[in-house]
């Protein structure tokens, strides 16, 4: 027996073909379902997204001059920046404006308070003045 000859009995023809084709099919599945999503950002079977292997992929590093100004990103993802719409309710016109007058003066008349807030301070109507 030469050193390269196998001491074992050869496989049956059917199982040999099945093993070879099976290996080829499994290899194709691994390449298409795991290697392409993880290394090349391609997902022909959708398995990469399903298994989360797609997240292993990252864009190539970009070299950025350390002295450059205003360059913060070193990787470019094709994901858009997040944008939010914020609503700030303003309430009624000049609500809370009487705080400007301060002190313990109170206005019986709302109209007077508004006039006072809008106009110059000297024009303010004192609280103890009666409106006839």
């Amino acid at each position, binding site marked *: 027996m030469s050193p*390269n000859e*196998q*001491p*074992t*009995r*050869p*496989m049956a*023809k059917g199982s*040999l*073909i099945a*093993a*070879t084709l*099976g*290996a*080829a099919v*499994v*290899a*194709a599945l*691994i*390449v298409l379902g795991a*290697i*392409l999503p993880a*290394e*090349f950002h*391609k997902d022909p079977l959708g398995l990469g997204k399903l298994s989360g292997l797609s997240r292993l992929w990252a864009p*190539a590093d970009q070299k950025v001059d350390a002295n450059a100004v205003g360059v913060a990103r070193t990787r470019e993802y094709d994901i858009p920046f997040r944008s939010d719409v914020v609503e700030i309710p303003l309430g009624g016109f000049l609500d809370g404006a009487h705080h400007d007058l301060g002190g313990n003066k109170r206005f019986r008349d709302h109209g007077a308070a508004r006039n006072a807030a809008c106009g110059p301070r000297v024009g303010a109507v004192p609280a103890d003045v009666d409106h006839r």
Partner: protein
Amino acid sequence: MFFKLHVDPHLVDAVIGLSVAYKAFDNLSGFKTLAGIQPDPKVAVFGFGLIHGFGLATKLQALNLNPDGLLANLVSFNVGVEIGQVLALTLILAVMTLWRRTAAFEPTARGANVLLMLAGFVLAGQQVARYIFGGAVS
């Protein structure tokens, strides 16, 4: 290097992957069973040895070696590779001989060769993908 010979390293690696699958198939006596022929292992070893060496060479070309004393460095590098191979194969041969003596050798050897064939196909597919889609040279 000394010759202007260059082939895309990914294609060389793909062929290396196929050579792994070839050897696994040959270990399973695939050629004898399916085609009735037995390829001369010496020819196969020589051919694939050339390709494997070529793969190593393309990796070296990517390293931008200093041309100063390049020939001496290359020769010592190859001597180092051979010493490493002798050391590794000594251990592997001892373990294989022990494995061969066990009763489980035949089924486990078949399984191992099928897995080896799978690994060869995966390696070939990965390198073809890298050739097509590009990416960092590994």
